[in-house]
């Protein structure tokens, strides 16, 4: 559908919190199959931009078009469910008292059951749907390297392991687009590699497009083709990752910020 259009197109998005212009008239697009980066100094509005694109916050102005459909004003759950655009949170979150498998099954449920009413079912169909989700969950758990800790409550795992659960959860529903908010922050280099591999796998084999906020510039240059730079809520520049890191304005923004 609409193969010639960008997968996600955001036009003139603005959002203020009181006197703070967190996001100021930002437009970007993500192409099909692309891994794009979103960088900028602390407080430059990257997370707010995510919140407004995914329905967690309401933009003051601007339009969000996903796969040719205007989804501005849709709720977070509807954008996830019907738009298949998922997002992670900067502060790692999991369902802490549940194990990895349950975490992933929850992530897949609303994409497998056709209605809320159907989720109250306990019949054969319902059981086989859940069994299907469990199988997929186990595969992803293996791939994420969490097999040995799969029966532990997620809250007992390390921050990096919880990040992996969060990431694997987003792959459950066969998403079109995933927005990652600092997937590498606070995790050790070994897990960084695993997360990078998983992102590349999801991109190449599952056809998922990505928009990634990341402060680790090596990661950005190694996985992102195109990078958008935000500074004080506005788009500073946009271009190929290698050019961006050489850009004088970007260097100044980071040093000045």
């Amino acid at each position, binding site marked *: 559908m609409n193969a010639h259009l960008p997968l996600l197109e955001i036009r003139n998005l603005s959002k203020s919190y009181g006197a703070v212009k967190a996001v100021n008239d930002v437009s970007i697009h993500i192409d099909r199959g692309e891994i794009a980066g979103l960088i900028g100094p602390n407080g430059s509005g990257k997370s707010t931009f995510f919140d407004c694109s995914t329905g967690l916050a309401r933009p003051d102005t601007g339009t969000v078009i996903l796969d040719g459909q205007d989804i501005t004003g849709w709720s977070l759950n509807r954008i996830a469910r019907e738009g298949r655009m998922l997002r992670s949170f900067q502060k790692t979150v999991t369902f802490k008292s549940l194990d990895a498998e349950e975490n992933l099954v929850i992530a897949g*449920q609303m994409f497998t059951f056709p209605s*809320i009413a159907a989720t109250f079912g306990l019949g054969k169909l319902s059981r086989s749907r859940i069994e299907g989700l469990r199988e997929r969950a186990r595969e992803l758990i293996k791939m994420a390297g969490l097999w040995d800790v799969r029966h532990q409550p997620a809250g007992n795992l390390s921050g990096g392991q919880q990040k992996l659960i969060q990431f694997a959860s987003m792959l459950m529903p066969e998403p079109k687009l995933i927005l990652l908010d600092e997937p590498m922050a606070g995790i050790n280099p070994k897990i960084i590699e695993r997360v990078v591999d998983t992102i590349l796998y999801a991109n190449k084999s599952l056809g998922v497009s990505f928009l990634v906020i990341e402060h680790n510039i090596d990661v950005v240059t190694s996985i992102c083709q195109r990078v958008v730079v935000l500074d004080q809520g506005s788009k500073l520049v946009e271009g190929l990752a290698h050019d961006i890191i050489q850009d004088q304005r970007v260097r100044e923004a980071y040093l000045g910020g």
Partner: protein
Amino acid sequence: MSLTETVPQARRRDLRIPLAVVLIVVALAAPYIGSRYVTHSLIIALIFMLPAHGLNLLVGYTGLLSLAQAAFFGIGAYTAGLLAVNYGTPFYVNLIAAALVSGAAALPLGIPALRLRSTSFVMCTLGFVIIGQAIAKNWVSVTRGDMGLSSIPKPYFELGPLSFTVSGTTNFYYLALAVGVLATLAVWAIVRSPAGRNMVAIRENETLAESLGVPTWHYKLIVFMISAMFAGVGGCLYAHYLTVVSPLTFQMYYSTTMLIIVLGGGAGMISGTVFGSLLFVGLTEALRVAPEVRMIAYGACLLVLVFWFKQGFAPLINRFWNAIGGVK
């Protein structure tokens, strides 16, 4: 190498099935084992177990603290009482009507209340009980005001050519037990379903659940209505058992009792609610014969809970259950 590794653990016999059989037999034979007063206490425990089951779905599984259960309990009691008094309808009609009316009443109340954040939500639900009482007092043409409804007939069944009336404490006990067992199975089915898993997801982290496509607002509203339906069923039994319903049915004391059952028994565990009803209602009702001891025992029980069993008694029950099953 430690000893436990070399010596295979002697697996103890599974005592769970014998214990379950004993419990079932005791439940069935209770009226013949204990005095009439014990049977009465058990009936009260079973009646309060119903709104507590509903509350457990809300507090224990979905993470929403509500004090509105007494309001829906009262609505159910008045619905059943009015039907029975005015139209002499059979028990199951009253029961279904009580559940439906209470559930329906939860819709307009839940829509604004569930938009509020945690503490405001609690205050709002508290308001429902007060409003319920005010309506019961002042809508005199229907509710008969402070006089309330009296001489509510005994539960009456009409099954084809067969019709009978449930009279006497013993028979009422079996009716309450049947309703209680069915309700417990219904709760079990709900929490085992995929929806039950979504409820837990909302309790654990609502925003995360939302970001994974779970329409949390709809689930919260549905669970609020289901929990009200359970309360309505409890109210129906209450009306038929006490044969009187007055505005005092809407009282905060009932809401707090239901909350103590759930939290004390162990929120988010079905066995906790069953046990909590027996302990906090059955026991205090049974201790009514010794009023000096009663409130002290109740208070002591709560203190023990707060200091030693923060999760309620259910984890203890689970450990015991696993232990006699030879697990670990």
